[in-house]
């Protein structure tokens, strides 16, 4: 069970919102779609949801065009939350479930399970508008998958959540994945993406800058992040071979290297054969890669390999 986008393009009269993007998502996988505001994430989601037509390209679910499919196979959590403010929590969940073709009887055990899991048991009969923002978001998330979709789209599921609720949501998403649900989600917070996704697609102004395995992406750049604690000064560090720039942090320095082969030589120079408290070489974080990719001109700033 896979979702495959090939060559998908959305053109409006005077601009291109989504420009020839390709990716596939496998069954039971969490796939991240990242990009700044206006990068084309929501448009992509809407095309997958068949709310908007594609100008070019195809979107296939298990080899069949999404345009011809009964949409009960998917669930959707929009970026800006949408629930009926005047409706009771339980009523709301039944309504959305029934709207996706489930009977009340089928829905009951699931609603019971998720309300308890999300600690909303006593809010069952409460109008949605009286809930806190975090609780509304939890209700909304339950509503998006209460009909047991095979494919779930989550647009910014973590925005505005406190760490405890974020953790709760994250474990729920992982539970769904383990049950075989295919999940596509977007987020501005790269740590969320890093934690959840194996594969991702980075969008910038409608164009795909990268699409594939997260680890592969990191390896493309190599282990060029070096964190050290040393008595050397910033100019001294900057003058070393292979160092691109130096940033002072409240716990030493972070050095960006040309490439990871400079590691052993730098260890010699900085440690001078002495005991060294901290010398850590690592991949760039997704956040850093994202800034490099999206901040620079398209296709530039790729590592020199």
């Amino acid at each position, binding site marked *: 069970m896979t979702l495959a986008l090939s060559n998908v393009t959305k053109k*409006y*009269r005077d601009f291109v919102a989504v420009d020839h993007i390709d990716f596939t998502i496998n069954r039971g996988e969490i796939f991240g779609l990242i990009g700044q505001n206006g990068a084309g994430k929501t448009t992509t989601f809407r095309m997958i949801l068949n709310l908007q037509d594609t100008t070019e390209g195809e979107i296939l679910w298990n080899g069949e065009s999404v345009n011809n499919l009964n949409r009960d196979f998917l669930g959707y959590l929009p970026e*800006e939350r949408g629930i009926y403010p005047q409706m009771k929590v339980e009523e709301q969940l039944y309504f959305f479930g029934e*709207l996706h073709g489930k009977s009340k009887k089928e829905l009951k055990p699931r609603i019971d399970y998720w309300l308890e899991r999300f600690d909303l048991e006593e809010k069952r009969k409460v109008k949605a508008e009286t809930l806190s923002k975090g609780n509304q978001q939890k209700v*909304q998330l339950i509503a998006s998958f209460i009909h047991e979709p095979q494919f779930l789209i989550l647009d910014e599921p973590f925005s505005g959540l406190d760490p405890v609720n974020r953790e709760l949501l994250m474990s729920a998403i992982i539970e769904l994945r383990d049950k075989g649900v295919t999940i596509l989600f977007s987020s501005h917070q790269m740590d969320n993406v890093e934690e959840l996704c194996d594969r991702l697609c980075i969008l910038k102004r409608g164009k795909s800058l990268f699409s594939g395995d997260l680890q592969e992406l990191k390896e493309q750049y190599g282990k060029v992040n070096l964190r050290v604690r040393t008595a050397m000064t910033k100019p001294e560090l900057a003058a070393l071979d292979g160092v691109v720039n130096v940033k002072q942090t409240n716990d030493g320095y972070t050095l960006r290297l040309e490439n990871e082969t400079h590691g052993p030589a730098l260890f010699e120079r900085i440690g001078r054969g002495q005991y060294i408290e901290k010398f850590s070489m690592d991949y760039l974080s997704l956040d850093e890669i994202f800034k490099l990719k999206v901040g620079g001109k398209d296709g530039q700033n790729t590592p020199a390999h």
Partner: protein
Amino acid sequence: MDRTLLLIKQNYLQKVKAKSFILMTLLYMAVILVAVNWTSIKDVFSGDDQVKVALVDETKQLGATFPEKGDVEFEATTEDRKTLEKKVKDGDYDGALILTGKDSKLNAQFITYDSPSLATQQTVETHVDTASKLYGIQQLNLSSDEAETLLNAQTVIDEVSLKKDDSGKSSASKMIGIGVSYVMGFLIYLFVITYASMITTDIASEKGSRVLEVLMASIRPNQHLMGKIVSVFLLGFTQIVILVVTALVGLKLAKADLWSTAADMLKDLSGAYIWIVIGFFLLTMLLYLTLGALMGSLVSKVEEAGQATMPLMMLMMAGFFSLVYGMTNPDTILVKILSFVPFTSGMLMPLRYSSTDLSLSMAIISLAILFITLVVVFMATVALYRRSVLTYSTGSIWTKFKNVWKFTT
């Protein structure tokens, strides 16, 4: 369950149970019951307001013209003017009417202390008027039979039209037609304004709270549109049924014999007229609900719903004021034109059909224009709804319209 049906059910139940709907319906029911029982209610409030007028009839012939009972009571007396003035001042009498004959003419003087109400003035005037005529006739020294004939002389005009398909409506049935058309026009106005703005607000708030986006993931835009129109229409229908039943029960139970009066009035209306009124009512309602839905889909949040319904309100008001104007001049060009314009015909065509000799075919043509417009507007709305429902933009309705076009084609 079919999704459109589920949507209709959910929306209908939510609205029918809403406090605002219940209160509004109760208010209308109260208004109807008050109207039906108006005579009894009026009696309760005006029971103590008897006006007592002293009548000094110096001609000695006219006392019988002034009733001793009624809203204004006349009490014949021979007291002199000074005593009367004192009694009026002291409040023993609300006024004193002095009738004197001079040169075959009747002079009347009405003395009051507190300025009399308009109703009292008018009653006194009517009676004095009759008395004055009577006095005039009496001065001609006619026999009582002659006088009677003269007083009761009235000609009934027998209308003969040479046109073959003339409707042959009597002036009485035209008057009733005007009355019924006014009431129907007012009801159309009231219902359309209430329910068109309800559907606009409803869709705008779903759009504003982004529920619509979630809904759109499982249902088609046209299912949503149909769901909204049908459920709001059913809600309006529910209210009409409740109000009609209230009115019928009220008429049946009312003290005054209004039931037979209403039945008589209904008899004067032709069957075709009733169907025409029903046809216009339903189609006008559907037309405005569709437009209301379209307007609701254009705005980005519920706060803008009022602005979006403005053009519809303007159209309705134009129709309603033309109706009020047309009640006295149903044959003016303006009314004639507007009775074929689909947005106003619902209020004006029933009026013209009932109060002029318009043929049935004209009314049917107007109804057909309305129907065709409804179909076209509905198709256009379905086509546009799909695009507008997920487009958020700011600015005037026209700008939004253009944006929808720009960003979705």
